[in-house]
């Protein structure tokens, strides 16, 4: 009996991935759980495990090739399995969706399709989270070929006006839409001359770069950005940190300023619910989240990733410091799993670690805000009418002005500043 294993939807709305390396060969015997292939998706490089035990009769796709969710990855000859509806038709553009087993979205434990390989396109068996509901869209009337071409050209079929009967989107509508510049053209700002090859270097976009581009545009397009700047004097925080730094270093914990800041942010979010929310325009609702998961923007060789520290409000500063260390290492080694990115409610970006003073951060949409942290520096300050040396931490907070007004934003920054100025308050 043959079983066709398709590239599973590994969450976060990813719809394609690039084959980095095949870890198996045709004809090879594999056990359920053995790694088959290393895939680079939008955000992670991950090994995809075999869902079944058997012999690999076919591998689909070459290294470097991009494949879509639902495309066949391997064909496994199952031994001793009878009467099981295991053969799937291989077809393009399948509506099949992954089922996350054991409630986990982690790549390593994911299995697609279970025993009954043919699934309906419903979301049965998948927990509907708040985000899932937001994704529900009206499916436009379109011909099969126009759907295939739209997918191929990266055209959002729902934004194409159909000219067919009853507004049906036809093949030519997609082609016209794509041609009319609704799709970014290569080398758009570079005139096509023979010497172009010497003047520019053309490199295909990586999955990660594509995702970053998509997310940034989505954010700038949907959220009404507004930014508040301030500075906080953190000599006391510096003193506390120095005092405990070596003690915890001996235990393997790197006690960073960021750990304190995350704690201050999490506690402040509890006081200002609008900053830990998102707006659901479609249903005219505000969604306030009662969990506080703080994403940290991490700069890697390949681009920006934003792993999440879950329930930061419930963790101590030291526990947060440990978590930061863990995810930073994973990020730089491209070992982050899908779960590490999920369910962030607020984001912190620390451009100061590279040297910047102020920046206007772009919101990690659909979150309501993002806090930027600048470079800490010694500055002249006035204390008790005397000039003194202060340790200044610049902060910039971008909020979605649709959700939070200037007053809320400023009060939220003030709260963070109070916590950081009086670090002892972070332990209460």
């Amino acid at each position, binding site marked *: 009996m043959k079983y066709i294993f398709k590239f599973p939807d590994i969450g976060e709305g990813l719809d394609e991935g690039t084959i980095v390396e095949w870890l198996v060969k045709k004809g090879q015997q594999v056990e359920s759980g053995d790694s088959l292939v290393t895939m680079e998706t939008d955000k992670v490089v991950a090994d995809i495990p075999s869902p079944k035990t058997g012999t690999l009769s076919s591998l689909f796709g070459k290294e470097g090739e991009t494949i879509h969710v639902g495309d066949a990855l391997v064909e496994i000859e199952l031994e001793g399995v009878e009467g099981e509806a295991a053969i799937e038709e291989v077809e*393009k553009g399948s509506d099949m969706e992954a089922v996350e087993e054991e409630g986990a979205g982690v790549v390593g434990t994911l299995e697609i399709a279970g025993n009954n390989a043919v699934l309906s396109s419903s979301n049965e068996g998948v927990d509907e989270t708040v985000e899932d509901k937001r994704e529900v869209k009206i499916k436009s009337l379109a011909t*099969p*070929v126009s759907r*295939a071409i739209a997918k191929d050209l990266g055209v959002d079929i729902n934004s194409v006006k159909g000219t067919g009967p009853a507004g049906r989107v036809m*093949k030519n509508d997609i082609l016209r839409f794509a041609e009319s510049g609704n799709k970014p053209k290569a080398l758009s700002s570079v005139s096509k001359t023979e010497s172009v090859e010497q003047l520019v270097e053309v490199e295909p976009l990586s999955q990660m770069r594509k995702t970053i581009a998509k997310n940034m545009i989505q954010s700038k397009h949907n959220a009404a950005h507004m930014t508040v700047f301030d500075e906080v004097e953190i000599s006391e925080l510096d003193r506390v940190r120095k005092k405990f730094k070596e003690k915890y270093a001996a235990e393997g914990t790197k006690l960073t300023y960021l750990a304190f800041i995350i704690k201050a942010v999490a506690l402040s979010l509890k006081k200002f619910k609008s900053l830990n929310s998102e707006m659901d325009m479609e249903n005219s609702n505000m969604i306030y989240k009662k969990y506080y998961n703080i994403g940290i923007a991490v700069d890697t060789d390949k681009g920006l990733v934003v792993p999440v520290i879950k329930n930061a409000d419930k963790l101590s500063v030291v526990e947060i410091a440990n978590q930061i260390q863990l995810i930073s290492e994973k990020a730089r080694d491209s070992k982050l799993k899908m779960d590490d990115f999920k369910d962030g409610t607020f984001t912190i970006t620390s451009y100061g670690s590279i040297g910047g003073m102020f920046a206007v951060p772009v919101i990690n949409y659909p979150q309501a805000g993002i806090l930027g942290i600048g470079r800490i520096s010694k500055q002249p300050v006035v204390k008790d009418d005397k000039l003194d040396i202060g340790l200044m931490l610049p902060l910039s907070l971008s909020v979605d002005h649709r959700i939070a007004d200037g007053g809320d934003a400023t009060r939220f920054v003030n709260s963070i500043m109070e916590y950081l100025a009086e670090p002892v308050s972070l332990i209460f």
Partner: protein
Amino acid sequence: MKYDLIIIGSGPAGYVAAIRAGQVGLRTAIIEKENIGGMCLNWGCIPSKAVIESAKLYKKVLNDASEFGIDGIDNKRIRFNFNQATERANSIVTKLTKGVEFLLKKNGVEIIHGEAEITSENTITVNNRSLETKNIIVSTGTYIPELKTKHKNLVIELKELFKDRKLPNNVVVYGGNSTAVEMAQFFAMIGKKVTLAVPDKAILPLADVYLANYITKVLKKHKVDFIYDVDLLKLDKLYTDKKLSLNGKDVSCDVIINAQDRKAVVPKSKAKFEIENDFIKVDENCSTSVKGIYAIGDVNGLSKFAHIASAQGMFVVNSIKGIKSELDLKKYPMNMYTVPEIAQIGSTEAHLKSKGIDYKVSEFSLSANGKALTEGVAEGFIRILSEVKYGEVLGVQIAAANATDLIAEATAFMSVESTVYDVAKTVHAHPTISEVFMEASLDAFGEAIHK
């Protein structure tokens, strides 16, 4: 009294346009100088299909009855009664034309019998009456160019065929279109000696070469002789003593069926619309060069098929009324009532090649279809031409006993730009001949079940 629309000619273009016009509330008159229903109903599609059906039954009784388990038929006593066959055909014609007349009246269309003359872009004279109208549709159809001869009754055309007559034994059919091919096979089936005299180098210029070659073979099997590049302009010089000299070959000939390509019947008109290659020139909206005058059906030379004529009629009336509709001549089927029937829709291989489209041909034979075998009609095939990248079905060609009905499925799925994957996953009932669609689609990606 002023009309919104006057239609000249009541064939499948004119009468459908008239009914549609009545439906949408246009004050409409239709003028007919002969019979309501025009060529198609009176002398074309309908009676010819009726007599072909008689011939098929005759052949089946003669050849297949005993094999199907029917004893007691004495083949020596079986005769084809042409007069009875045409009588049956004419009774069907009467029924249908009466029906059309009823529908015209029901939809408030005024029927005027007489010959029309367009006196200006807004006036028509008929029976010495001058009628004023906002729009004019010309749907006067076509005629067969005459073959001049001094020999009485030597040349007949389709219009004269379905009358009480005795059929001679040696028949020459002159033409290379589907009518000529159908007639050649018809006469061969009822036991006549048939020669198909083709004016060009090949038959069926609109069909895919594959289909044309296939049906040529079928006709040759029915003992039809083919002679190409024939010109009967100087017929009397070629015809002596019941022999017709065709390119140096003497062919026995008692009668010539004139089935040449037809030419437009241009009505008398003072409004001078342009004529191009013997047809009334129209733009993509079926408008002639004179504003307010439209030409639909085979008079405009876009197509000779009745269903396309009707579609043009609907389209033009909708545009007059301001209702948006579409006319895409590429998505109409072409049918031929041979045995087996031939049907085609969309692009031919030659067309795809000329456009440089990367295509794939997938095929399934009727000989592997259960229903076709039980009916004893396993002759034929289906071919699907699909685009390689997305699998869109770009053309379908069928040779099958019921090809002209089968093609309707292709028409439907092609109108929504379906791919071979869509057709393949559509469950087709078993046993039916329609299963060949599923199989041929699966074959497009190498997964046909019964191949």
